């Protein structure tokens, strides 16, 4: 019985490790290219726009950190960039848009390719504090 439990425990650790790797593995492109990155405020007013050249294997987080100021990424979430700052009560947050569509993943695992337009937009958190 004890051996059975040990085997199940090992299997659970393997599942945790595999799922964690799947989640935490950052996206890296398989080719070179360039992307346009925009930072917009709560009224969608452009704060900064930059065309960034990337190479195979470049992480988006590194590209953003190297091309924009005041970048803070905490636990996979973009908390600060340029003058945008996520308040502690999360009444607003920095949403990521890819080619006009709201991104389904965070900045670390967001896929991007040559010619993509990314936007970091300050957004009202509709579900906080309601």
């Amino acid at each position: 019985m004890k051996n059975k439990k040990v085997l199940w425990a090992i299997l659970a650790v393997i599942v945790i490790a595999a799922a964690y790797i799947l989640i935490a593995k950052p996206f890296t492109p398989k080719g070179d290219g360039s992307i346009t990155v925009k930072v917009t405020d709560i009224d969608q007013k452009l704060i900064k726009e930059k065309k960034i050249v990337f190479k195979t294997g470049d992480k988006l987080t590194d590209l953003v950190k190297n091309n924009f100021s005041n970048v803070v990424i905490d636990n996979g979430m973009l908390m600060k960039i340029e003058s945008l700052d996520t308040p502690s009560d999360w009444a607003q947050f920095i949403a990521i848009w890819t080619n006009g569509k709201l991104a389904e993943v965070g900045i670390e695992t967001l896929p991007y390719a040559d010619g993509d337009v990314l936007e970091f937009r300050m957004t009202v958190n509709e579900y906080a504090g309601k």
Partner: protein
Amino acid sequence: MSTPANKTEKPFLSARELCIMALLTVILFAQEQLMNFLPNINFTILLMVLYAKTFGFVKTGMIITVYLILDATFMASLNPIWTTGQWIAWMTVPLLICTVFKKTEDSLKLAFAGALCAFLYCWVMILPTMWVLHTPFVPYLIKDVPFELLLAASSFLGILLLYDPLQKLLKKLLRMEG
């Protein structure tokens, strides 16, 4: 009118039990906050299974309600749809443990029950998440799989390794009641 028989009846909740339950609520909340840096890896379901086995459905429901209000307030996610959905999702744990797994005491079987509760929690949460965040169903379902596996496997592992010693400890604590 009280009779001598019901005068000696044990109250539903003694002051000592209430204090222990408050402490256990804090432990439930604190462990989740401490493990927040890990995605969906926590001992929340282990503790809920432990509490449900020790205190039963109603008292565990009280612990879960207080924990959820505390957690939602602290995490700025107190929302009628989201929080109600989360309450329903968490309540599936004591519901299953106090019904289907009422007679189960083996930690391996309870570990499987915990994993099942983890998947149920994640699946129940799909609906409020879609409602509040306007998340499309299929991409959410696909992207949620590794997170579901993390919660299920960490709950499974936690129950398998820690349920028996924690239950002994909790029972010892409750037996100290005069």
